[in-house]
């Protein structure tokens, strides 16, 4: 098929011009050159990659490996399965790997079957797995979120695969602008890169063009700050929490990072703080009474969630540490019992009503984003009485369910309450209003949030709202929002 015919074919399949052009150039490029696609969230690099996979499979590729963060395994598997049927698609973790291994004779590779294997980067970098992957020829290896591999501790996996000479084509994907990838692009003698020559770069950070050659315009985004004032009882609780958390940090209980996370959750919603405190109380009580945790931490599962509590855990500490930490947690929970107001929620309800009244053309699609599963659960429950349908997606739902819920939301309109993890891999097109109920940890996550909604090529204007508490009860929250306001 000529490049021109291929472009027509890709256009007919719904690819945008810049995606199709990339696919064509990728297929025509020298396979031995490493390809790097740097693209902002919302430009559809997964769409382009999956289209390239389909083409390669139709041209005889037998084995494709996709290395992705655990949270995106399901998304990749589903998308690849939807777009091509030449090759079966498998998602492999430790348990399924053991059975694959047991099913082949000793000395044979469990990876030798034809197909697209989607595996998490954390699983792939385990010693026996990377060793096995390095013995089999791969027609294509796709590394998602490739900027993670710039870090030395993660680079080994890619270095081993490249050094083994088993990778026919290597495609690196990242939503990180190129300066962050200097290590690959401008190698230094002190830090040799994993590739013999720097990757060939395709960047979508510049101007993108439509099929007719016109410049793709970013939809207009209006930002608004919703000012509210936390109630006196809420401020009292937060003050207590701020007083207690440094002590909790010292008391330890094996949770050196948790105090900071607790405050961040409290900034999101009182409910999220309450849930965290109760889970912490449960864990500390279990430790004090010497009950062993029922199961071992499952790194794959933990990575696949947007609940950050696991980040705060360190090694178990002494019973005395746990007891003193438990007392502090109990104190916070007691203080929480007298919190009867929730001004942020009240303001949210007012905002949703006012948007509904002011927006003349249904269906109205309002998306409310939060960092935390608990906040999303709370808002989903509290908004049920609104005169509209309320949907919810979080990282705990599987990808197919999330996609179906979003499809229904697009069809009927309503409120969609989602976590950052839940909206990952999902296109929230046609959303008219986005309410950031809390602010993410980093500007990059904020950019991703925006990219989920604010897709390139979308024409629907979108209004975004950020909540700001006038009481200033949580200083770092106010600082973060002020920084954001300055950027916007």
């Amino acid at each position, binding site marked *: 098929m000529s490049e021109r015919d291929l472009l027509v074919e890709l256009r007919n399949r719904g690819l945008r011009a810049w995606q199709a052009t990339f696919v064509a150039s990728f297929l025509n490029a020298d396979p031995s050159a490493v390809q790097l696609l740097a693209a902002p969230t919302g430009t559809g690099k997964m769409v382009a990659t999956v289209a390239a996979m389909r083409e390669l499979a139709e041209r005889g590729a037998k084995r494709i490996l996709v290395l992705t963060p655990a949270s995106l395994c399901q998304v990749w598997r589903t998308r690849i399965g939807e777009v091509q049927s030449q090759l079966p698609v498998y998602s492999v973790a430790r348990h399924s790997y053991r059975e694959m291994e*047991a099913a082949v004779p000793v000395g044979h590779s469990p990876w030798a079957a034809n197909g697209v294997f989607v595996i998490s980067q954390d699983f792939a970098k385990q010693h026996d797995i990377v060793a096995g992957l390095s013995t089999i020829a791969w027609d294509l290896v796709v590394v998602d979120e490739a900027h993670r591999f710039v870090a030395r501790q993660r680079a080994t996996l890619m270095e081993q695969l490249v050094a083994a000479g088993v990778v026919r084509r290597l495609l690196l994907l990242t939503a990180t602008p190129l300066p962050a990838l200097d290590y690959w692009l401008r190698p230094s003698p002190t830090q040799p890169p994993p590739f013999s020559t720097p990757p060939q770069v395709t960047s979508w950070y510049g101007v993108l063009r439509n099929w007719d050659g016109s410049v793709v315009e970013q939809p207009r985004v209006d930002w608004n700050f919703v000012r509210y004032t936390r109630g006196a009882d809420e401020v009292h609780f937060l003050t207590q929490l701020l007083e207690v958390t440094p002590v909790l940090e010292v008391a330890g209980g094996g949770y050196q990072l948790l105090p900071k996370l607790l405050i961040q959750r409290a900034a999101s919603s009182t409910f999220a703080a*309450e849930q965290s405190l109760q*889970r912490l109380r449960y864990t500390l009580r279990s430790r004090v009474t010497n009950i062993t945790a029922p199961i071992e*931490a499952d790194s794959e599962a*933990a990575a696949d969630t947007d609940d950050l509590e696991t980040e705060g855990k360190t090694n178990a500490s002494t019973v005395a540490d746990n007891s003193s930490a438990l007392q502090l947690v109990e104190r916070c929970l007691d203080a929480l019992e007298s919190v009867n107001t929730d001004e942020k929620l009240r303001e949210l309800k007012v905002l949703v009503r006012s948007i509904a009244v002011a927006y003349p053309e249904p269906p109205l699609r309002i998306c409310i984003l939060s960092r935390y599963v608990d906040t999303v659960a709370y808002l989903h429950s509290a908004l049920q009485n609104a005169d509209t349908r309320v949907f919810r997606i979080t990282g705990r739902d599987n990808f197919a369910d999330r996609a179906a819920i979003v499809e229904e939301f697009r069809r009927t309109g309503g409120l969609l309450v989602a976590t950052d993890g839940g909206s990952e891999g999902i296109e929230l097109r046609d959303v008219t209003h986005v309410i950031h109920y809390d602010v993410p940890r980093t500007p990059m996550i904020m950019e991703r949030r925006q990219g989920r909604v604010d897709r390139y090529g979308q024409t629907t204007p979108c209004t975004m709202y950020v909540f700001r508490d006038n009481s200033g009860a949580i200083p770092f929250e106010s600082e973060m929002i002020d920084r954001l306001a300055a950027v916007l």
Partner: protein
Amino acid sequence: MSSDDSRVPAATELAAGSITDLFHRLNRVLPENQHVLTVPGEMVAYEALRLLRQHHFSQVPVVVAGEVLGLFSYRSFSAAVLAASASRGGSKIALENLTVEECLEKAEFARVTDEFESWFDSLDANNAVLVGEAHRLQGIVTPMDVLRYLYEVASPFVLVAEMELGLRALMRRVVTDDNLAECAKTCLSKLYAPDRLPTTLEEMTFHDYVQIIGDGRHWPLFESVFRSTRERTRAKLEEMSELRNDVFHFRKPSVEDYERLGAFRDWVLTRARAAEARAKDGAA
């Protein structure tokens, strides 16, 4: 091995998640990220004993040229010492030169697809079962792994039972049978045909409890036992209801789900203790 070898169709079935994978087999008992400690055959027994003590293990596989020759354990060491001593007619033996290869016990191998109860006797006798083959050791299962696994499988059901029974008891504390029937009429009548409307706690589902407690019209009845706000209580009960649903639909709970279940169960218990204490105070 040819890198183009694709004579392994069975693997593809398994990678996709076979139906048999749903059954409780040895693979499920093996810890997810187990790192198996092995020792070479020429290692002196003294060093291997030090490793066992250091890692709190009772035995360790002995591997020579990629093949598991057997197991070295306190027991195999004692047996080897006794045998050596007997063969020398009671004269002294040089323990410092004894290698693990001279203290081996035969190893039995299970497959990841085996039913784990078929290995109970072996676990009882040997305290561990090797999984895989002599040339491909995939892991080691111990009785503690089995116990942890069974606890993991059973504990969510126990926690859900405690949560639900506790919640019923709390509701009973603040509503009479008549109150409850009235609550059911107010907020459950849309969900049931009139002749099927549940009026007692035993007839109601967990979802019905959530509807009744979380309804603004009934909240004044329940506020005294649940404290907090109606919105927070309702959100919590809805979360409990979802987790309960997951448990009874046999969806594997994550580590966080266990914590959530435990925390919910603790929350109900705390509310029950507070309600009982207040009742005692009132009686006094």
